[in-house]
């Protein structure tokens, strides 16, 4: 969005090589085939979702240039899209991104209090990441869960009717999950695209 903070950040070039493993590359080809010949640029948003996840939760210049090459488009065409949509991050994020809805019904049904409580509990402000790299806290606009307010989204999951007790449980669960190593990462490539 035009006033989104990410717009003002300089893209990070890390000179790390990035490429899709074979299995994901197959999926990528399948996605591109959904659009007419010559219209492969349509696959850009799905591909950025996959790349972001494969790159550990954010997009850098190296990744975006790689996607441009796959789709045979100019790198700038990728940059302008990556900076427009709020689900693309141009900086490293915590393992879990807590996105707390602050719009409309969520705001009047306790969403602001939920945000305060999470801030206090994790000791961070909006936009910050905990020192252990686990949690990034963000405020977001309407998630489309108004009837289940207050809601938040953590990575691919929705959490509804939040209160302090629920937040405690969620954060504890995520903490223990973060260290058991079982978590599979390629959800976008496998389930959502």
């Amino acid at each position, binding site marked *: *969005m035009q006033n989104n903070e990410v717009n003002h950040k300089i893209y990070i070039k890390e000179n790390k090589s990035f490429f899709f493993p074979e299995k994901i590359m197959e999926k990528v080809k399948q996605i591109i085939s959904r659009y007419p010949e010559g219209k492969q640029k349509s696959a850009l948003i799905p591909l950025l*979702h996959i790349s972001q996840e494969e790159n550990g939760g954010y997009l850098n210049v190296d990744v975006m240039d790689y996607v441009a090459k796959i789709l045979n488009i100019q790198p700038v065409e990728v940059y302008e*899209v990556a900076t427009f949509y709020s689900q693309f991050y141009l900086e490293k994020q915590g393992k879990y991104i807590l996105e707390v809805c602050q*719009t409309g019904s969520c*705001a*009047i049904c306790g969403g602001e*209090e939920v945000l305060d409580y999470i801030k206090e509990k994790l000791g961070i402000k909006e936009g910050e990441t905990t020192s252990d790299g686990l949690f990034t806290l963000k405020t977001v606009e309407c998630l489309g869960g108004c009837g289940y307010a207050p809601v938040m989204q953590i990575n691919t999951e929705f959490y509804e009717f939040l209160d302090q007790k629920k937040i405690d449980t969620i954060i504890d669960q995520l903490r223990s999950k973060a260290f058991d190593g079982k978590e599979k990462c390629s*959800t976008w490539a496998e389930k959502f695209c």
Partner: protein
Amino acid sequence: MGRKILLDKIDIPGIQGFDVYRQNGGYTSVEKALKTMSPEQVVDEVKKSGIRGRGGAGFPAGTKWGFMDKSTNNPRYLICNADESEPGTFKDRYLMEKLPHLLIEGLIVSSYALVANTCYIYIRGEFKYIIGILNLAINEAKQKGFLGKNILSTGYSLDIHVHPGAGAYICGEETALIESLEGKRGNPRIKPPFPATKGLYQCPTVVNNVETLAAVGPIINMGGVEYAKIGTDKSTGTKLISSSGHIMQPGVYEIEMGITVEEFIYSKEYCGGIKNSKKLKAVVAGGSSVPVLPAGLILNTAKGEKRLMSYESLADGGFESGTMLGSGGFIVYDEDSCIVRNTWNFTRFYHHESCGQCSPCREGTGWMEKVLYRIEHGEGRMEDIDLLVSISKNIEGNTICPLGDAAAWPVASAILHFREEFEFHVRYPEKIKKRDHGNIENIHVLQNVSI
């Protein structure tokens, strides 16, 4: 109990899967349309049904389909708009999650009517878990011969693909959606040309809301004339209402158009009344973009008639004393709610979501947010109130897409109906500053607020 057409089978266990859905009458409209009707006949039935677009604009769907350019040999596309992002609206998410096959059925019949062989479901990125549900339903339908090549041996072929967005309210606007689907920023296009002539890849395209397309199956099954008998003359059929805010039973309800607003808010079948035995203060009836109405005007029109849940009754009185059905995002505010804070909240949303293409919207939403912030935080000036009205007037009608109007109306209507509350904020900054998250006990006693 009101009549249910979309959600009538929602409680059947396993209805999410193909087999149970099929056993309960699912996909019969596909058989009927593809085997016994021509595409024009399907379009005709939808025209006769009188169904109006359920995404917010309320434009008759059959008429929109009729605009589809038939003079070119280019491929035609149907796009299902599942970018549901209007604050207060969550019906499409509910429908797709609970009844994915109802949508797929509607998409097949609609694509057939429009002679489209490719259909994209553009779904907001935040609903990623629903992408899995839809893909599963699409694959099931494909396996059973309802999708893919030569459907039910009729010679008609169709592919449906789910395409995720990535967090942008503006992509719910149909031309922004098309831009986004082409892999670009979601900047709305100047119209004309309309998508029906030059849409996706400059080909004839129809973009319809999830709920509109899901209703096409039932319309074909019962016939357009029969469907038109439900509801009122100008608002036919049933409508999904997403209700939220200070009510006993928030959720998605299917209503027959034309029930009274009072019944919808207070009856146990729907919202169940106001939470904590409080009084009703205001309602935003059709998603954050429509004018807010105080209790008195939402329950009864300015003429003193009962206000009904229909396009025409909610709009009765125009901007002065009416509102709009919009997307059916029904947000209820109790007597302790702060209208100024809510207006600031909505305006922050529009400022965040403005694509930045048109100056009046890009700059105006930011100005309004700043001014509303200072009034809400006890730093406002009396002249700020008229300044807000002036900014909103300069945005309204001066932008490429309706986001500008959507940002202007909540502000202008809040000031029109609740000016005393804005003045109160300016007059008593100390009281305002003491509040926690805008809640002030007995704010309704301190102010001269309706009811």
